[in-house]
């Protein structure tokens, strides 16, 4: 058991920018996908896709996600027709055709999300030298050091939402008042950024920026506030799905496996007792 304790001790010391981690402000949210029975909220993921599409995709690629993932189970679960329509809004390069030329065609569900820039150099040139990271895995590629003994408790509370909490905090962490103006170095103050006091990205979200599709329908009961907080929650949930599309299947299978193993262990325990019943040991 000493080795287990060793595992607990050493494992979760995220040594990302640990020096800045002490000052990074993290606002923990309750996510629909957290905990052993967590699931994604389809509607939330659809809203999150809308925010990504209208706000983020101008600079941030999502190279590993394909349009067809949007109608697969455990995700936003758009209908196939909706996905065909969404995909067709984009042009992708295909070819060569019979003449040997490359040509453009509307995207199909089997295509991946097209990237906003042709390559990293183009992305940096359009963003003052800063490279907007790809979003396919960003919710799993970020975390903040939790410190002892929290990281031990995390094993039992199943806290895996360090990435989502961080990204939410970053999106809502821009300094009050100065949030549309860069400072002298051309960067924006943000108290949740792990790599420094200010970030090169201008605040991407503002109230009323995206008009949710569900706010435009006839039912006023499902209207949601179009605030930065709501946008941040929705897009972060979408990013978590993009990083971990099989989360629901994983947790569902986990439940079956754990029940099976516990019952099996119980049967084996009593079998062991029976086998050893007459034996001094």
């Amino acid at each position, binding site marked *: 058991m*000493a080795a287990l304790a060793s*595992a607990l001790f*050493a494992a979760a010391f995220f040594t990302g920018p640990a020096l800045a981690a002490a000052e990074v402000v993290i606002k923990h949210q309750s996510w629909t996908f957290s905990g052993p029975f967590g699931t994604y909220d389809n509607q939330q993921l659809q809203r999150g896709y809308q925010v990504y599409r209208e706000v983020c995709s101008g600079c941030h690629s999502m190279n590993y996600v394909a349009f067809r993932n949007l109608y697969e189970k455990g995700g936003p679960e758009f209908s196939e027709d909706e996905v065909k329509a969404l995909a067709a809004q984009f042009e992708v390069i295909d070819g060569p055709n019979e003449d040997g030329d490359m040509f453009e065609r509307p995207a199909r569900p089997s295509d991946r999300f097209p990237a906003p820039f042709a390559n990293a150099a183009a992305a940096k040139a359009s963003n003052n030298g800063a490279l907007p990271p790809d979003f396919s895995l960003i919710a*799993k590629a970020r975390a903040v050091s939790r410190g002892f003994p929290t990281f031990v408790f995390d094993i039992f509370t199943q806290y895996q939402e360090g990435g989502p909490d961080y990204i939410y905090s970053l999106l809502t962490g821009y300094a009050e008042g100065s949030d549309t103006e860069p400072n002298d170095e051309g960067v924006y103050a943000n108290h949740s950024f792990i790599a420094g006091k200010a970030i090169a990205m201008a605040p991407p979200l503002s109230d009323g920026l995206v008009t949710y599709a569900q706010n435009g329908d006839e039912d006023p009961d499902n209207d949601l506030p179009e605030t930065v907080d709501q946008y941040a929650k929705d897009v972060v949930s979408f990013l978590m799905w993009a990083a971990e599309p099989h989360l629901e299947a994983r*947790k569902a299978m986990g439940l079956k496996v754990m029940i099976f*193993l516990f019952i099996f262990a119980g049967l084996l325990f009593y079998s062991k007792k029976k086998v050893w019943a007459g034996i001094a040991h």
Partner: protein
Amino acid sequence: MSGPSSYNPKTGFGRWIDVRLPLPRLMYDSFIAYPVPRNLNYTYTFGSILSVMLVAQILTGVVLAMHYTANTELAFASTEHIMRNVNYGWLLRYMHGVGGSMFFLAVYIHILRGLYYGSYKDPREVLWILGVIIFLLMMATAFMGYVLPWGQMSFWAATVITNLFSAFPLIGEAVVSWLWGGFSVDNPTLNRFFSLHYLLPFMIVGVVILHVWALHVSGQTNPTGISVKSEQDTVRFTPYATIKDIFATVLFFIVFAYFIFYQPNYLGHPDNYIEANPLVTPTHIVPEWYFLPFYAILRAVPSKLGGVMLMFGAIAVLFVVPWLDTSKVRSAVYRPLFKQFFWILVGVCILLGWLGSKPPEGGYLIATRIATVWYFFHFIILLPLLGLFETPTPRPASISESVLGEDGDSHGDSDPGGGAQPAGAAASPQSKG
């Protein structure tokens, strides 16, 4: 060992095979009739757990290898392809990654058990050495496996660790270029790491076979450290040890499954979900948790060569433990001083693990140096001296005596006189009425 084989094939086919290739006889002698001490506790089940984990890693690894591409342009993408597109690819990947950690958890418990109960002592020195060889092969396999997804930590851990070999005078730089297949960690490195990562587990299988063979020559130790004196001390492997091993394995699987399904990335590092970039160095480069104690020792001294020698020395010292420990008493149960120092060593190893995740500066560096000194002090100075000066507590005359007590009171439920055979009628496979 138990002497001549008691296998008696009952079927015609059984006799036919026995004359030509007596594999069933070998299996019977090794895993059914093989006598084990009756007083083994659950720390002795980890050998079996390790065998199961080795098979699990090989099976999941072979299937993963069907979908993975070991080229720097494609490795990260192929790993994501496995996670997203391959049917149950996410499950295979998490089983293999978490499985590696579980493998090391089990091996550390297994090694600590050996250190505590004196399993390395005469006549089991070769058994122990084979075990340390397996441990070394495991470390090499795990290191190369971690490079394969080609994340930031994969790349930079590979860079740091391969650069260590340049510390050796004269030949160092040449060795490193040869390892890399170039002038830095790049495609040739990744490709050969994939090849070797596929190869080494099968070498581990070979050494495990030798390890189990060596074990079966001498037989198991037991918590008292007293050798087996008569048949009364032992029970047949099947069903007694078998059922305990299976039960312990399922308990281990519960922990394994918990991490796979509910915390698959807990033991990993988020930076490895960022594709490798030779131009961007992570703020802190750290290996997986099971390497952290050695990483701490490596960085304890300012000299590169010194750090490398100490790190390899920390494992090399394990090879000679059978000769460093001079005590005639095998088990820590009867060695009160050794027992205390054993637990201090465990604490020091855990401390070194935690320190390995911290930057080597200030208070952390001082603590690392003290812990490193203590680690070597324990093996090189303490173990020899303890054997000479410690007063052990009285040992029982035999395993049976320790189990039964001196006047025949048994810990078991009924008459223990059955020796190697089950005494309870309900448990006996042979009694019919």
